[in-house]
């Protein structure tokens, strides 16, 4: 069978939940950021696949992807800045080192 939309959707969904799983289980903040990247990439894949296979006439999906990539960069940058600052304060980038605020 010729791989098509559903195959790609499978990949993207799987990637999405791999990212989610990573986000849930990694202890390292930077690792969690990576998981976020996976999630965003899966979304990108979705958009591109839909654009390609279902709505090829317009470029909406494509542009969405481009902008998501840009935002991912900005988000990651800020997140890393915050994490580094946190690291300066706690000397750790373990997510469990930042659990003072609770209940």
């Amino acid at each position, binding site marked *: 069978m010729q791989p098509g939309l559903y195959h790609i959707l499978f990949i993207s969904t799987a990637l999405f939940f791999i990212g*989610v799983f990573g*986000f*849930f289980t990694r202890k390292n903040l930077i690792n969690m950021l990576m998981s976020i990247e996976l999630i965003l990439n899966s979304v990108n894949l979705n958009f591109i696949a839909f654009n390609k296979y279902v709505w090829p006439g317009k470029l909406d999906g494509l542009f969405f992807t481009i902008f998501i990539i840009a935002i991912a960069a900005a988000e990651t940058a800020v997140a890393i800045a915050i994490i580094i600052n946190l690291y300066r304060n706690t000397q750790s980038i373990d*997510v469990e080192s930042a*659990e003072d*605020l*609770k209940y």
Partner: protein
Amino acid sequence: MPNATIIALIPLLPFAGFVLLGLFGRKYLKNYSGLIGTALLLTSAALAFYTAYDYFFVAGKVNGVYQQLNPMKITWLAFSQNLSIDLGLTIDPISVMMLVVVTLVSLMVHIYSLGYMKGEERFPTYYAYLGLFTFSMLGLVLSSNIFQIYIFWELVGVSSFLLIGFYYNKPSAVAASKKAFIVTRFADLGFLIGILILSNQAGTLDFHQMIATLTSPESNAVKNAAASSFLGASALTWGAALVFMGGAGKSAMFPLHIWLPDAMEGPTPVSALIHAATMVVAGVYLVARMFPVFSITVPAVLEIIAWVGAISAIFAAIIAITQTDIKRVLAYSTMSQIGYMMFALGVSGYGGEAGLGYTASMFHLFTHAMFKALLFLGAGAVIHYVHSNDMQDMGGLRKKMPITHITFLFACLAIAGVPPFAGFFSKEEILLAAYHGNTAIYWIALITSGLTAFYMFRLYFSIFWSRPYGSNSHDHSADHHHGEGGFAMMLPLVILAAGAVFSGLIPFGEFVSSDGKPLESHFHLAFSVAPVALGIAGIVLAWVLYKKQNTIPDKLAASFGSLYKSAYNKFYIDEIYLFVTKKVLFNLIGRPAAWFDKNIVDGMVNLTGNTTVFISEKIKKFQSGKVQLYAIAFLAGVIVLAVLFIYVL
């Protein structure tokens, strides 16, 4: 038509006294308060006498029948078109008679108290209360509306409460006043419900119309009277019985009598006024006021009235024999005498000869007021002298207090039914009525009359004879600087003694009868033999036993054993009441109610609060501070919502 203003002034003058003395007495009128009160009452009494004269001899009789007149009526509170509480004045034979009795006795007490209560710190207050009581009693007597009578009924109750508790720093007086109020209040509850039933049946609260409706065979209420509505009795029967319950409470009928002996804690003149002559006969008056209804529509209730009266009469007489507190003896005797009046009404029929009991009852009410007030005032003089209520502390006082002695003797003779004193005539009529009405009651009455003579003379001998005064260590000879009492105290004794002696000669049936038509009283000589003989026998027995100090009474008492003991303890009725109030009301209802409120109702509210806090504490773990768990919750929320809305809803 008698002048409404004059009649209205009769109760209003004492009321003015109450307001005046109540507001300003303590500060400004301290020394004059007695005189002011007395003067007002004197005016009031004069007006009452004038009214009586006017009614009986000038204006009251139309075509040989005494009319019921309503010279004034003010709508006080209108519930609906027909149903309203009106304040009105009713003038008919019994109300006029009562006017005279009340103002007369009250006047006597006012005068007497000038001496008796002299030096009392709360002298103005005392007179204010007297004024309030007199006002209420007169208002009660004049009522034209059943709710009006209830209003004054309650006012009488409260003034009685105030006067019994006049010596408020004596715990026993406080307790007695509370008891009097609460017991009569309980009876009034019945009265109130009775009023509601009757007014509902009659569609009016006005006595005149109510009686007219409830006695007219056409009215629905009467037609339904045969049909039972509740516990086998008709609504009307229940209503009438409950109204009587109110009367029984005020008139200290068995078993609602328990407050009366205790009420003797009040100043003695008060006892004379309220607990002998006026207030306690309110129940009798109430029954008499509604007599047509009882007699024509609900004879079953009348039967109850007769039996309650008879039982009270003999019951009280038996207890009276054993009491040593002179005021208590008098109290029980009052109860016994009111029992007489009550059963006289109970055995009476309506109209004509059959209405003899009615007339007799009113007659006895009249004469009894005289001699019983006299007895109390006399007793008051004695107490004033010896500073004690107990017979043990008295004896041999005839020399020290001659006027008191003589008047007291007259009164005793009158109550014992010795001719030609007042009591003889009225009692004779009652016995005659009972004889015709109900034989069993007649025999009870006869025995009671013997007992009455016995205990009254036991009292008399114990106080005035028995032993020379001063032979007992209890006597306080040193205190007797004030002698027998001043003119103020002696004058009423004399006046009342005159009443006790002569009032029996009034042809009462001429004026007061069940249907307004004059009733001729027949004197049956043969018939009076038995009661008079029994009376004499009682006196002689008392003479034997108590003239001289001896041990026979104690021995007798011992031989009667438990009977004596239970009579001495008033047949433990008080204890039963105590049990009901303390154990049942307080412990079985009040305490659980308070507990329930504190623990269950309040508890529910607190539980709600505590549960909220508890849950809040339990779920705090969700806010774990772990950002990954937050994300899991997030995803779980998404999944649950998605599943919910795709598959479930």
